[in-house]
């Protein structure tokens, strides 16, 4: 019983996600989970995952947030539109220019926040107004649309169907391959740990975990395969998420993010240059905002002056729902991904059900408050225990 409680406590958001998914699947008569909608869900929420990953690094440093990312998305999108559509520049050169601009904006924020120690809230609030203004100036208030197809294909196309059947067999094969590799890696590392005498989870729990995760991956790839196949955007997301998951858990700079957020004074006395850590978090946020911008213009096939509005709130929401602490030092990339999917399912499910747009906002706000309240209360309890 205690064990079940612990599993439940550790994976609250996963269970919440499952419940919400089942609820909407039931309410929408299964529409939520039809292959076409699953594909939709992924392309609709790609930008949230990318932005939330970057936001997590900022939040980890001590609850610092970045309010400017929606405006940065608009600005970089406007730039991409001008370069690719209006100037007809080579798309690769344009992409590199956009990413560099994102880095520069991130560096500016980072310098002000980390070295001048102006509160992140203020710096990025200023950025939010400033970059939106620049975006409007570039676009002159107009929307740039119709990107060339070779640009759109980078983000909007699917894994090709080499076997030419009813289903996209290659997508299914990829899904199965991922599962096999995952299972092998898990078993090898388990054996290694055992050999060196480290604690390992019980075989039962281990197998169950593998079965569930494999089932999810195969079900997802089956679902995608029966529509158009695995979308490229999913591969981009997987790469980004893997890199940042690795970065935060397995590298020294990643470790420093947690140490700084957990106790900045202790980190400083341990010889960590906390200014550099903070600077990096915002530099990276600028970079990922630019990536998200490129994804967004491809998805909408346009660069609009209002693009990216409220994206910062989606990203922050995904982080907190995904278990990041509002005080910093706690949070994981997989958690944030779950948070983003959770928000995505909520949005998508309510839209399909035809819930009034205003009501949707009420529900989303309530969910965010509930998630953070739960986080704070559960921590209080573990402290007094």
């Amino acid at each position, binding site marked *: 019983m205690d064990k079940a409680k612990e599993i439940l406590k550790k994976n609250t958001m996963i269970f919440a996600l499952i419940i919400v998914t089942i609820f909407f699947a039931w309410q929408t008569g299964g529409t939520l989970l039809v292959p076409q909608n699953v594909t939709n869900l992924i392309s609709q929420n790609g930008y949230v995952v990318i932005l939330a990953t970057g936001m997590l690094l900022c939040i980890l440093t001590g609850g610092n947030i970045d309010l400017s990312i929606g405006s940065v998305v608009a600005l970089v999108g406007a730039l991409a539109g001008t370069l690719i559509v209006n100037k007809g520049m080579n798309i690769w050169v344009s992409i590199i220019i956009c990413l560099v601009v994102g880095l520069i904006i991130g560096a500016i924020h980072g310098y002000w926040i980390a070295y001048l120690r102006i509160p992140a809230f203020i710096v990025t609030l200023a950025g939010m107004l400033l970059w939106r203004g620049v975006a409007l100036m570039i676009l002159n208030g107009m929307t740039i649309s119709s990107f060339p197809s070779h640009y759109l294909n980078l983000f909007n196309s699917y894994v090709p169907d080499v076997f030419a059947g009813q289903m996209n067999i290659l997508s299914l094969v990829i899904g199965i391959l991922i599962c096999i590799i995952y299972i092998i890696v898990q078993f090898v590392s388990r054996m*290694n*740990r055992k050999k*060196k005498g*480290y*604690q390992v989870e019980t075989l039962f729990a281990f197998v169950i975990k593998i079965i569930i995760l494999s089932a999810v991956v195969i079900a997802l790839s089956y679902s995608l395969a029966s529509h158009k196949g695995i979308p490229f955007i999913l591969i981009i997301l997987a790469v980004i998420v893997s890199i940042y998951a690795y970065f935060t858990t*397995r*590298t*020294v*700079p990643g*470790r420093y993010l*947690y*140490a700084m957020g*957990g*106790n900045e*004074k*202790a*980190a*400083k*006395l*341990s*010889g*960590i*240059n906390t200014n550099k850590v903070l600077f990096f978090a915002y530099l990276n946020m600028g970079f990922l905002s630019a990536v998200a911008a490129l994804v967004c213009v491809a998805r909408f096939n346009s660069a609009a002056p209002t693009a990216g509005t409220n994206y910062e709130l989606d990203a922050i929401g995904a982080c907190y729902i995904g278990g990041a*602490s509002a005080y910093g*030092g*706690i949070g994981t990339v997989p958690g944030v991904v779950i948070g983003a999917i959770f928000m995505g399912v909520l949005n998508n499910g309510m839209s399909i059900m035809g819930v009034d747009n205003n009501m949707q906002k009420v529900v989303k706000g309530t969910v965010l408050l509930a998630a953070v309240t739960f986080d704070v209360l559960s921590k209080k309890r*573990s*402290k007094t225990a």
Partner: protein
Amino acid sequence: MATILLEMKNITKRFPGVKALDNVNLQVEEGEIHALVGENGAGKSTLMNVLSGIYPHGSYEGEILYQNEECKFGEIRDSERKGIVIIHQELALVPYMTIGENMFLGNEQGSVARINWEDTYRKSNELLQTVGLRESSRTLIKDIGVGKQQLVEIAKALAKNVKLLILDEPTASLNEADSRKLLDLLLQFKKEGLTSIIISHKLNEISYVADKITILRDGATIETLNNKTDVIGEERIIRGMVGRTMTDRFPKREDIQIKETSLEVKNWTVFHPTYSGRKVVDNVSLHIRKGEVVGIAGLMGAGRTELALSIFGKSFGENITGTLLLHGKEAKLNNSRQAIDKGLVYITEDRKGDGLVLTNPIRVNTTLAKMEKVSHHGVIDKQAEMTAANDYAQRLRTKCTSTEQMVGNLSGGNQQKVLISKWMFADPEIMILDEPTRGIDVGAKYEIYCIINQLVKDGKSILMISSELPELLGMCDRIYIMNESKMVGEVSREEATQELIMGQILKTSKGA
């Protein structure tokens, strides 16, 4: 015989792992000035916090009788309603509010919906006159000096109809003239019938104002001396404060050969980072040799931690001047990273505040100061990290379910061991230990002492800052005495006694 205003009976207060107060008794007569003395950590402040309701009824054992009524204070407001007001060592004033606003903070004049500022400032001005402070009550707190701020605190207490005033080290940050003014004010209030309890380290001040002196030591009342009837010398008070029997609370250290000097600091001066012009370390020189444990004795606020932090890669203070020699060669350490790389580490007195990352497991805390030992090209080798953490947990006998346990869930003693592990892992030559046994129980203390002995046996140099004199006497080969930012003495193990050290500190205090 005068009536008893306050009686505290058999007060016992426990903190996790320690007994801060053990059956303490205190009797205060109406209209007297009662002094409470004792070493740091003797339990003076804890006792006053019990009295004022900061530690609510139920969190301690024993009885408080005030005006012959049993009191069960749940919070500070309860005690203030009865006229018991405490003024803490760190003043509780809001710098950007006026004197008047501060004096009636939480006690605003007028109604909830409309503060009556006329009344507030008129009453404030009257009270300021009573305490002899010639300032307008519309002056901002930040614009007046510490001495005047102390008077504002007293005026604020008077505004609450105080009957029993408690002052915790009121003169600690005051100069001689301001201190004298404050003490005279207390004597004047006494004539008007006010009872006060004063906590102080300055024995000459206590002899000057106090009617009775209660001595606390290790959380227990030792004795109450009557200053009116007996002539009490400072020697007598010091003996009461420190006179404990030294049993085998300290592990024997094998004879260790003390070798060449590893760290030397010459003419070290450090200024305060925010109050420019205030010297926190004033022309201090010291040296430590390999295989030696050197102590620094002193009262809180003597500048010991500031000295240590400024040596540790200038982690505190500004305009640091002086020479630092490591193994005979001059070294410039501009940040903590450089200090760690040169083998000099500082182990903080505040393990929760700036030592450990409480939300991280033991493993992560252990390796934090020297990640390059468990990583290649910035990628962490988790297995190597676990091996290292387990190794230190075993060597230091840290009690934990595994090294994946969150540090925040460990007891104080075990947290301290993790903190020491962390800095041992950084392969230091010289370790500065700041209050290494603060707030941990006797058993854990003994284990920490054993670790220190092992470290010097391995040829390390240890600089130990401690407010517990017996600990310094039991552990150190040499003891420096620091007071009010200056080095005021150095004694060898053989000649050191608690009376000598305490005497030296008190003799050099500004008040003397």
